[in-house]
């Protein structure tokens, strides 16, 4: 069988203890929560790490709290709890939906929000066994010097595949990290960089505590759409969140967040389109916008050209849902 390499597991009961472990072992350390991404990556020797710091016993990292203005979700809240939480379902339905579409029931039970945000990038040339990567001759993220996705490419373009990230960005979520240097807050949108080998701007010494999401105005609505070959288990092959602000069917602002591209999601502001009606025409226009501005790469499985086409369709469908139109074009409603 695939063997899990040996490592030291630290199980602190306080945040102070946890950040002390992180500081002591950085950079050869990772935070482990459900382990549903980290442990398979360690088995594949894709991640080689000696120290793991568990957040299982850190109470302040668990659960959802609602204030008058915000929802605060602890980083160690399980994806299933997130999907089932009544406050999340009521105020941030696209986030609850995204969480409900991750992995399988078993993975959602183990996996957590913090783990999903920190999910390692994925690529058909890296999420493989050692034999496979040796046969390939390695890549920028493995032990080689060549990118097989973008021939001649200098930077790793492995794909961000976290389902929760597009809706978190669309809702304007803020991440809260702590380290021995204190607390740091940053918009989730700014957490990602264009480097597939280490795409999350959370330092090895830092512990992600929670995300805080402002309670949306009634005029703000977000839809998350994911396409994968199967209805369960799969990582997204297309991943879009569409946020439309507006009342009475007229757009006042919003954004489209496209993921499953490279290491960083593409965020397209719709503020310049304020004043347009939320209708089929807007669906077509926003479809064209993402077609022009975002391009899936042949990094994750499936035909990249089809994924590009599908991304456009999913954006159109998101807009139709928000416009109160049937998901499929009217011509198909026979």
């Amino acid at each position, binding site marked *: 069988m695939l063997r899990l390499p040996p490592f030291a597991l630290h199980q602190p009961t306080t945040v102070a203890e946890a950040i002390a472990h992180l500081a002591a072992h950085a950079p050869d350390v990772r935070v482990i929560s459900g382990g549903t991404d980290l442990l398979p990556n360690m088995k594949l020797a894709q991640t080689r790490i000696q120290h793991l710091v568990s957040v299982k016993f850190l109470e302040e990292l668990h659960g959802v709290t609602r204030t008058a203005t915000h929802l605060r979700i602890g980083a160690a809240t399980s994806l299933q709890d997130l999907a089932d939480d009544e406050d999340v379902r009521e105020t941030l339905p696209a986030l609850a939906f995204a969480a409900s579409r991750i992995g399988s029931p078993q993975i959602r039970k183990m996996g957590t929000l913090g783990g999903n945000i920190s999910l390692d990038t994925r690529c058909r040339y890296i999420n493989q*066994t050692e034999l496979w990567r040796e*046969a390939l001759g390695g890549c920028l993220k493995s032990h080689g010097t060549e990118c097989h*996705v973008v021939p001649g490419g200098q930077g790793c373009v492995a794909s961000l595949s976290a389902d929760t990230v597009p809706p978190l960005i669309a809702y304007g979520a803020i991440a809260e990290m702590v380290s021995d240097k204190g607390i740091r807050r940053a918009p989730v949108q700014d957490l990602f960089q264009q480097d597939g080998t280490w795409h999350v701007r959370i330092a090895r010494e830092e512990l992600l505590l929670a995300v805080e999401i402002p309670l949306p105005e009634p005029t703000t609505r977000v839809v998350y759409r994911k396409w994968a*070959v199967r209805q*369960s*288990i799969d990582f997204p092959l297309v991943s879009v969140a569409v946020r439309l602000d507006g009342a009475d069917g007229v757009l006042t602002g919003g954004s489209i967040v496209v993921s499953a591209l490279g290491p960083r999601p593409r965020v397209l502001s719709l503020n310049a389109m304020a004043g347009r009606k939320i209708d089929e025409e807007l669906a077509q226009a926003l479809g064209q916008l993402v077609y022009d501005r975002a391009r899936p790469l042949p990094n994750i*499985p499936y035909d990249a050209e089809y994924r590009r086409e599908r991304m456009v369709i999913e954006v159109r469908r998101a807009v139709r849902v928000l416009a109160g139109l049937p998901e499929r074009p009217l011509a198909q409603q026979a």
Partner: protein
Amino acid sequence: MTLSSKPENSSQGRPYTVVGARHGKPDALDAMAGLAKYTDDIALPRMLYARILRSPHAHARIVSIDTSAAEAMEGVHAVVVGEEMPARYGVIPWTPDEQALAVDKVRYVGDAVAAVAAISEDIAIAACKRIVVQYEVLEALTTPEAALANPHNKIHEANKHGNVTKQVQLAFGDVDAQLAAADLVIEGHYAYHGSTHAALEPHCSVAHVDGRGLLTVWSATQVPHYLHRELAKVLEVPTHKIRVIQPQVGGAFGGKSEPFDLEFVAAKLAMKTGRPVKCLYTREEVFLAHRGRHPFDMHYTTGFTKDGKILAVDAKSLLDGGAYSSFGLVTTYYSGQLLGSPYTFASYRFDSTRVYTNKPACGPKRGHGSVQPRFAIEVQLDKAARALKLDPIELRRRNFIGENTTTINEFHIGSNGFLECLALVEKASDWKARYGKLGRGRGLGVAGSTYISGTNYCIYPTDLPQSGVQICLDRSGRVRVFAGTSDIGQGSSTMLAVVAAEELGVHLDDVRVIAADSDLCPVDLGSYSSRVTLMAGNACLSAARDLASKVRQAVAKKWGCQKRDVILADRRAQRLDDPDVFIDITDAFILAEVEFGTLGSTGSYQTPRDDVHGEYRGGTIGASPAYSFTAHIAEVSVDEETGDVRVENIWCAHDCGRALSPVLVEGQIEGSVYMGFGETVMEHHHVMASGLRTDGARRDTGPGKDGLLAHSSLLDYRMPTTLDTPNLYAGIVEKPDPRGPFGAKEAGEGPLHSVVPAICNAIFDAIGVRIDSLPVAPEKILAGLRAQRSGGQSC
């Protein structure tokens, strides 16, 4: 859901008591509760763990192997390389092109090169990394076209014809004349992709040499007997010094039907170290071992009369074999030989060529060699029905071959419930009211098929029986059945228990089946080609009848009546004409033991030798004592914006002769339909290969390296989840065949075949787009719709 079941009964002049009852598998609870012992559950004292070093090159010559650093590691007990086991073997004795570990060259990424036994798996893994292999890399041939175009770059130097492993050309009747006379000729090109078995349990083997020098090999195999023979050959140990045991197996589907490197490796390392050795595959190794569905490239020309009668079938197929022969000789024959029913062909010709490529070897997957041509012919029939404006079910009825007849390639067909299968799915799907009337985006499709109930001949030439069963009774009232059969989850042990219980008048729970242990059981050839129910079932029936006769005779003597007046049923021996006169079955066994001494019997089964097949070269391959028949109707909905195809319902009716265990038959139907559905819509054993065809074959490889699997985990080898799977309706049709036990024929593979074309025919009914290149994929649907809009396709 079950469509119908209506057995008619008679045995010992009484109704059946066990046959046809809705029982489960007596051993199912252990598997469900996690108590069943699989090969990997075996842990022997002082056991070592083996790992196999595999080639990172698709095609290379081995210049040198230096194992010294690995051998020097603490915890390493032995290293083995190919030169220590150079004998060539192959499950088909005519094509021995494999070696336990590569000797001179490697032929695919993953070919086994060396192996280590160590005190832990971790040490074995680390030691493999210290083995230094020098390779001289050769040009890899990863498509059949490339393999044919480069006959001098031989993947196997000893092969006679470049990289062609087998070509079969057979013709029956005057195809050219019939095509010239046809009112309608349909020509189609079809691409069938590779898929693999993906059994839950990875291959695993444990070996041990005891103090007497007896080598015992436990293995997750479906052919313990063939494994036994090949172990003897490769290890140069006589068969009587080897014991092969097959523990509980977690699925096989054809993927464990020949010897694999790990069995030889575990055995050789056990012999070298004097300690037990276990070797367990990773999931990646299972994908590399493969032996799955061959990719086929097929060109079919079919001629019809204006009434829809098939005048001619002309088929040309190119089979992508991968690096070794496996069962490929048979696959190549099957690709043409199994197409001769359930329809009458006035003339038939096929030309099939299998080539070596530098990829994991293809072999037998459920429906071996006949699922691909079945796809082509059933889509051809659908195209003809459209062109002739005939209901596709009616077109199939018009070509029905009948029963007790002979196919154009001279196979004898016994019972044939194909028309009943068609009628059942037609009614269940409400076809007449719904076909062609569901509106755009939703459609129904039909297809039919046939399959063998075992191959008439053993894969090695012999006059020995194909199956042997021994039964013992004693004063406990318990029945013990000893059989070499291989229960891989399909329930062959339950089948034997049903047959024995029916004849001996006991309950299913009273029968202990001891199977697949070469020291304890008579030989059976194994679980392949859907042979076990018919062959081992007949052997068991023969042994059970022999014993039942003795028991009835002893009871009759006691009662002063004739033997025929005594029946055994429901744990009793009773008077046929007076149910109030009976004794407990245990007392009946005691009477028999007193009368005859210790009670035992054997039964064996040999296939019929007369009137089964033609006398031409190759005429024996595809011959079977009896044939099953199947019909499928699929219902799909298609999203024309995304290209998504949702299979909503699949109705399957299968003629298994007699359902000895209807619940198990339904399980086989549902499992087969699921498997066929999965490979139609998503599963793809995809090896990266540049220069892919331009006929719609999926272009998702991207740059990379030829010969690498596009998936080496169950995440990337996508099989349908529960949420993806349509409603399945399993219907049993019973047309007892005189050659089957109680009339039984096969049920394990037939119900897979026609689901594939039924889905594609339903897609055409929904949107008028033909998917002739599998698997179905949204981008192909969209491409078809674009072609349609620009006036492309018509039928």
